């Protein structure tokens, strides 16, 4: 059984809003000083899902793919330390600032290059752009079915049974492999890499593939060839209308807050 897990490195979503900055002209987020980028919070759950399937089957190979800058190696290493087997970094100047359509194509080409893949697992969305489009894009580029927002999964033969999270409930679906599945945070806690595994992961190789290696045409990548044009990126002006509740003592402030809440018919 061959499983591919796609992971992404993003700016830490725990970054305090006061340290979040945007280069408006370049339409990019300026990395906050002293706050390292992290693995997209949904992605370790995708790796966890792959590891559980491999554990249940007693065999299989898990290949981790990330599209990003050189630093995205850390996101791959994290998955390798959790127990994945091999890593591939898709890195090329033409991959900078591309959209999810272009990313989906590059990931799909890489998955085809890996070959004989039974299952592709991805986080339900990336926490930076928060679109959740890439899993469906990868599936469409590969001509495979896609099941989104999975909270649990079981494989029997070629049939995958997936429990999905809906807005107002849950849904159980079946799909034949090969397929693409996006994993939600409801899947459960991902395992924490142990020191020994971290040391083992350091020895696992990470291949680097460029746009040429993926046989992408010039017009398939590059910021200028985005299908979704990014016209502006800015921090919205939050008009702060906060009313600070004053008082002679904390108890007095609390009483004044209770009165305000009652006045506003909130309690």
């Amino acid at each position, binding site marked *: 059984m061959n499983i591919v897990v796609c992971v992404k490195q993003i*700016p830490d*979503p*725990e*970054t*305090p*809003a*006061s340290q*979040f900055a945007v280069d408006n002209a370049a339409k990019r*987020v300026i990395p906050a000083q002293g706050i390292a980028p992290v693995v997209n919070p*949904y992605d370790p759950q995708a790796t966890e899902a792959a590891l559980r399937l491999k554990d249940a089957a007693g065999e299989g190979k898990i290949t981790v793919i990330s599209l990003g800058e050189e630093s995205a190696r850390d996101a791959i290493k994290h998955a390798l330390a959790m127990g994945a087997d091999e890593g591939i970094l898709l890195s090329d100047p033409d991959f900078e600032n591309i*959209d999810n*359509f272009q990313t*989906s194509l590059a990931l799909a080409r890489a998955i085809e290059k890996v070959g004989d893949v039974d299952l592709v697992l991805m986080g339900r969305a990336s*926490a930076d*752009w*928060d*679109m959740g489009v890439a899993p*469906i*894009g990868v599936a*469409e580029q590969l001509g495979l*079915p*896609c099941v*989104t927002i999975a909270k649990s999964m079981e494989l029997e033969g070629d049939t995958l049974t997936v429990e999905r999270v*809906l*807005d*107002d*409930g*849950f*849904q*159980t*679906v*079946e*799909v*034949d492999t090969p397929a693409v599945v996006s994993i939600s*945070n409801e899947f459960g806690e991902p395992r924490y890499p142990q020191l020994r595994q971290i040391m083992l992961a350091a020895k696992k190789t990470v291949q680097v593939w460029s746009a040429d290696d993926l046989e992408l045409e010039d017009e398939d990548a590059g910021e200028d060839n985005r*299908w*979704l*044009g*990014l*016209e*502006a*990126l*800015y921090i*919205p002006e*939050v008009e702060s209308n*906060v*009313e*600070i*509740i004053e008082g002679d003592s*904390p*108890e007095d*402030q*609390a009483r004044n*807050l*209770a*009165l305000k*809440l009652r006045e*506003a018919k*909130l*309690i």
Partner: protein
Amino acid sequence: MPGTLIIAETVEGAVAPLSFELLAAARSLVDQGGGSVSALVAGDESLAQPLFEHGADAVYLAPAGSLVSGYAETGVAAALAACEAAGAEVVLMGQTSLGRDLAPLMAFRLNTAVAMDCLSLELQEGRLRATRSCYGGNANAEVTWRGETQIATLKLKAWDALEPDTSRNGSVVPVEAAGEQRVRVISTEAAEATGVRLEDAEVVVSGGRGLGDPSAFSMMEELSELLGGATGASRAACDLGWYPPSQQVGLTGKTVTPNLYIAVGISGASQHMAGMSGSKNIIAINRDPDANMVQVARFAVIEDYKKVVPALIDAIKGLD
């Protein structure tokens, strides 16, 4: 005459309210740029009239059950057929379980892009420009489409439905939904409603790392119970083991939209804001006046929660 197509949804056999929000958004685009508004809905002909009354000029009728979550592969065939028949250049749907699957699927089939969860739309020289929130609400992005068809999902409740006009009418055209459905739906269950679910609560009291002490959560629970609400926590607090992960509010936790959200000792990083920024009234209790949560709040108390929360509980009890 280019048009705008909306994908309506149904709930218990009636048109779902979000469909009317989509029609209001489509109507305002057509008012600026011309063209007509079409709606695609799955079910019987009686669904058409409310869509006309809320702004549709034409209704495309797909077989019942073809536009529900889990069936995006079937639904996309109907959506593509309606899009072609209507000559639509703009396709709008809701950011729902269905829209999250259907919008990208349709976009990839049409070789065009999709923008998810848009907050506002405008036309520039006849082309769509959408604003959407990203980086956990820290930034806004404005996007445009290169491909001919411009597909977007809209944030729920970001548009107000138009007043129904019972004199409006239009044509009803059936469309097929003959997509290859490779994903087989076995069962769909509604979430169980036991006690006050965090996601349904009208009042949520959440604690964060700023509580400094796991036992302080009993104080949060006392306040939320008093207000008939639910208790939540930030990821930082859950990671510290102070509160169960099932009660985490945020990007990797639950999304809540209560009428009243009381944030105690939570600074307001985007991870947390992503799960509660839709709250209608935010109250911050925090010692840091510059905390993001204080900035977005309606009311804030800048004090030590250990003194404020017990006094607040007493004061609320004394109100009646």
